[in-house]
């Protein structure tokens, strides 16, 4: 609280990007955790809540005749343009926000203050809800080829790895530890995903310390062991997700990539995903394109191209597809690395998991996947998200890109994901919010040292509690057993307006198929409950049911998917990338379209300027936002 100079400023204008006339006048409050803007018009009170942790930059713009402008940019891609009457207020708020949005110590993070009214038992259970160990057994570990190793239980072999590791059964302790010494930061090759049906595995690591000539027998034996753990294929792919040039440059620094002559039976492959700095700059350029007021189509498309963003998304997707194909079509195991093996490697491995295994396309499965490939394998969330005031060069939208890849898949396959777009966006917001402890710290060991499980709460139970908001009404569990084969043609990659222009409501479809279907599903459920109740009453009236207060057999809830692992027999490619669409008539409800919610389309998001003089051609631009920036606390 000591950083708040002025907790309340009145007569602050919230500028509307599209129509200055429509700008709101209201009161700005600063609390320990949030910036709150309250607009009071007649009887309506509109509140805009912005978490301090979500603020990425605060900028004082040059003074204008109407006041002192302050531009606030958020990690959620929200933009707030405030106008203060007095420069003093503007300066105070500016200084407060600068400090509040850049905490220096971990203890200042919201999660350490936040208490969702749970007791210690709830807290403990919450943290145990998602378990990486359980996912290993779901995949069928331990088995004849793979086992769970506790060699890293004190984080001695690799400080940024989880405490339990999946390793080939025939890799000796000496091989494991030896291999770790030959890998950057000790991130040795370990299991990421085991594909039961083909016995092929996806493994991950960091780059080898091969330099120009070095080699390591244990590392070579490690790869040999991974290869031998798959009886179905005589070789393994080694995928370096970096562009070849970057990998070669690393050789000069004593790192680099595997020499095919030293390793037996490997097929080496570069994938060309760019590094975190290029990704950070690319997002920066993309956001500039997004924030241009009324761009022409040509400016927009040129800007989109120049940002390179979709090119990078495609490169991640291409690599994920390569992995999935190798596993399900060639039955080959794959070892993936980049430089440190915590950015591009995490993207590619988790994407391949989603393509291969329908479990990860469920609400809970995605949590498990994020917990496994990102949190436990040491994706540096604190650095990449800039939670604390640290090196800005460490910040990069690596995780955002992963979420976008999932979204791109959900656009191509609208019926195979249990969750909808809101789920991905909510996870994204929570990663940056630091309201829960999951994404604080850079690796498992750091989290343990911070005692996050005792001091903060886990996000996952919170998401699960609200899962009705995140459900995809088109989800068909009958499609579960398919491997996804997405198209990676450039024209099938779209700009994700729902993420990067999330707060420009006027740009979004005015009626949402998703919301419509969610409300239909809800009505259907209510209708079924009523029907069951009426049937029960009828039975009682007919004397079939003797006891009016007795239990009744309600139909099984359709919407609580079993957590059971689907045994995923992959469907043979038939040249089509369509998963076999199965009508699954049993799930289709009767007459659902008859009860559509009566919700008129709200006109008025479009306004054309007709106020120019006679002779000049009037410039007309459709205005697309009523800027309903709102966020619940």
């Amino acid at each position: 609280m000591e950083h708040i100079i002025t907790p309340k400023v009145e007569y602050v204008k919230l500028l509307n990007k599209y129509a200055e006339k429509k700008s709101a006048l209201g009161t700005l409050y600063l609390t320990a955790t949030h910036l709150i803007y309250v607009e009071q018009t007649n009887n309506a009170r509109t509140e805009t809540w912005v978490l301090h942790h979500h603020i990425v930059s605060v900028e004082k713009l040059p003074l204008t005749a109407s006041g002192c402008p302050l531009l606030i940019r958020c990690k959620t891609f929200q933009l707030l343009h405030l106008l203060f009457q007095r420069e003093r207020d503007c300066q105070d708020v500016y200084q407060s926000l600068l400090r509040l949005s850049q905490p220096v110590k971990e203890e200042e993070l919201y999660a350490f203050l936040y208490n969702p009214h749970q007791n210690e038992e709830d807290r403990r259970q919450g943290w145990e809800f998602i378990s990486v160990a359980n996912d290993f057994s779901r995949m069928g570990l331990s088995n004849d080829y793979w086992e769970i190793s506790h060699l890293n239980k004190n984080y001695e072999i690799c400080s940024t790895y989880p405490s339990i590791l999946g390793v080939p059964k025939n890799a000796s302790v000496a091989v494991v530890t030896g291999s770790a010494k030959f890998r950057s930061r000790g991130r040795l090759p370990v299991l990421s995903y085991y594909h039961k049906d083909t016995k092929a595995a996806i493994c991950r690591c960091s780059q080898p310390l091969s330099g120009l000539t070095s080699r390591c027998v244990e590392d070579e034996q490690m790869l040999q062991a991974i290869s031998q753990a798959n009886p179905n294929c005589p070789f393994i792919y080694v995928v370096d997700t970096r562009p070849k040039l970057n990998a070669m440059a690393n050789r000069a620094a004593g790192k680099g990539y595997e020499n095919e002559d030293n390793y037996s039976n490997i097929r080496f492959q570069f994938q060309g995903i760019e590094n975190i700095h290029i990704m950070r700059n690319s997002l920066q350029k993309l956001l500039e394109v997004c924030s241009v007021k009324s761009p022409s189509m040509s400016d927009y498309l040129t800007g989109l191209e120049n940002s390179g963003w979709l090119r990078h998304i495609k490169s991640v997707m291409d690599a994920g597809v390569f992995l999935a194909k190798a596993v399900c079509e060639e039955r080959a195991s794959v070892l993936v690395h980049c430089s440190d093996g915590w950015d591009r490697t995490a993207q590619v491995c988790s994407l391949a998991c989603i393509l291969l295994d329908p479990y990860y396309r469920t609400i809970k499965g995605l949590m498990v996947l994020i917990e496994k490939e990102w949190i436990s394998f040491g994706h540096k969330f604190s650095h990449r998200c800039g939670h604390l005031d640290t090196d800005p060069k460490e910040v990069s939208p690596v995780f955002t890109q992963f979420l976008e890849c999932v979204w791109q898949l959900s656009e191509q396959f609208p019926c195979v994901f249990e969750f909808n777009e809101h789920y991905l966006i909510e996870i994204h917001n929570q990663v940056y919010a630091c309201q829960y402890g999951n994404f604080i710290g850079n690796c498992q060991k750091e989290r343990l040292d911070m005692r996050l499980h005792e001091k903060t709460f886990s996000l996952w139970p919170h998401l699960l509690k609200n899962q009705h908001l995140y459900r995809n009404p088109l989800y068909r569990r009958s499609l579960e057993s398919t491997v996804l084969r997405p198209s990676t043609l450039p024209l099938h990659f779209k700009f994700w307006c729902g993420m990067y222009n999330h707060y420009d409501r006027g740009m979004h479809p005015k009626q949402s198929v998703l919301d419509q279907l969610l409300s239909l599903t809800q009505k259907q459920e209510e209708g079924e409950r009523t029907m069951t109740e009426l049937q029960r009453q009828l039975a009682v009236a007919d004397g079939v049911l003797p006891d009016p207060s007795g239990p009744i057999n309600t139909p099984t809830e359709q919407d609580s998917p079993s957590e059971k692992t689907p045994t995923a027999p992959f469907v043979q490619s038939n040249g089509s990338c369509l998963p076999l669409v199965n009508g699954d008539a049993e799930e289709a409800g009767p007459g659902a379209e008859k009860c559509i919610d009566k919700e008129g389309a709200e006109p008025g998001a479009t306004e054309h300027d007709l106020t120019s003089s006679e002779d000049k051609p009037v410039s007309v631009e459709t205005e697309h936002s009523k800027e309903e920036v709102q966020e619940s606390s």
Partner: protein
Amino acid sequence: MEFAELIKTPRVDGVVLHRPFMPTVEGTLCLTGHHLILSSRQDNTEELWLLHANIDSIEKRFVGSLGTIIVKCKDLRVIQLDIPGMEECLNIASSIEALSTLDSVSLMYPFFYRPLFEVIEDGWQLFVPEEAFKDLESMTDEWRLSEVNKDFSVCPSYPSLLTVPKDIDDESLCKAASFRHGGRFPVLSYYHKKNGMVMMRAAQPLTGTNGRRCKEDEKLINATLCAGKRGYIIDTRTIAVAQQAKARGGGFEQEANYAQWRRIHKAIERSNVLQEGLIKLVEACNDQSHSMDRWLSKLEASNWQSNVKEILTTACLAAQCIDREGASVLVHGTEGTDSTLQVTSLAQIILDPACRTIRGFEALIEREWLQAGHPFQQRCAQSAYSNGKPRSEAPVFLLFLDCVWQILRQFPCSFQFNENFLIMLFEHAYASQFGTFLGNSVAERLKLLLSQKTVSLWSWVNRPQELERFLNPLYEPNNLVIWPSVAPQSLLLWEVPLQMHEMPKEHMDCEISMC
């Protein structure tokens, strides 16, 4: 002429058909006067029936004695036929080339097609101007139905009955017609019931370089204004293009002579530029490099999305003048048969809920496109793959459908029809067994005796068993004006007509209808 003369080899066995992302089919290829047919002669296997009229261009390739014909269709499909035997292949290719480029309209398939269904409701009689006028009469008595064009001498591209202000006599109409390009004097396009404002359309005025004026034309459009009210003239061309038109006898309304009107210029491209855009877009989609940068820069260079944005923006402007400003509007470009119709028809979709139903949309296409004289036959003679010399081909109607799709995507619950309906219209505009899109005007259609000799598309579409796949399960009638966003982020590429690629998407509509 006998088609048989053009068919040297009527059938070949052992032909293999390749379609993108569908299993190959081996079977017998047959050529008839109007179709290319491939049948595997097995039960339950799909046969290919392709209208010659749908073929835009073909390519031949030979490897030894195995010939390959790549058939590129006007609806943008691409298929490949492997034909054993060089002579057979050459014969087939030359027959296809000849049959797909027949010039005479009366040889087209609709004149030979006999429906296998019973025509219950004749589409030719569905949308007659008299009926539309009856609706108008119930709302206002300011308008009359004029027969001044009954022999098509005043304006060859207009229908015989036209809705004009009540106080303007036929003689004045003739004079106004002589002042407008192609005789297309201002006529009523849409009456906005909510506030009584109207939208009219016309062709450019023939002011020429010396600023000719026509009192009757001025009187005609002024008659639509309320006392003391101003109206808007939306010229779909930039001011520069409109200025240039003066040199060729065209021009625009001078402020001095049309003091009650405010003129706004927009920048919808001319039809030949639109055609280049389609060709570039299709080329971009076929790019084999898989490079994102290349794709985006080619997409940008095609200007396709820019055209969509500009057309929609202009339609929004027209709708806004009427609904928000409470002003009447006159829309024209140069000839008044292309960009003008895009704007007037889209504005009606925005303003009038009736146009968002299936019947209403059909009526809109009849009124604002077919009867209003959009030259379908010229515009749809060739498509993106044609090697022929470009004449007056242009994807004007396809762009209109694209814009409708954009609005549909933004208001997915406000339309009674779905995307399939738009795709179907696109396909039939380019090649069809029905006569609806033949000819360039009402006069031409009458001369061809289309309503006697061919079946109307609407007779087929409106049968309940066909309608089913065009219905939007989420439709909920909505009486509001629907304002689409024209921000570039809001306008997506309409992929489906570019169907040369696989559509990875499972069909959303069928999934929704099962919910």
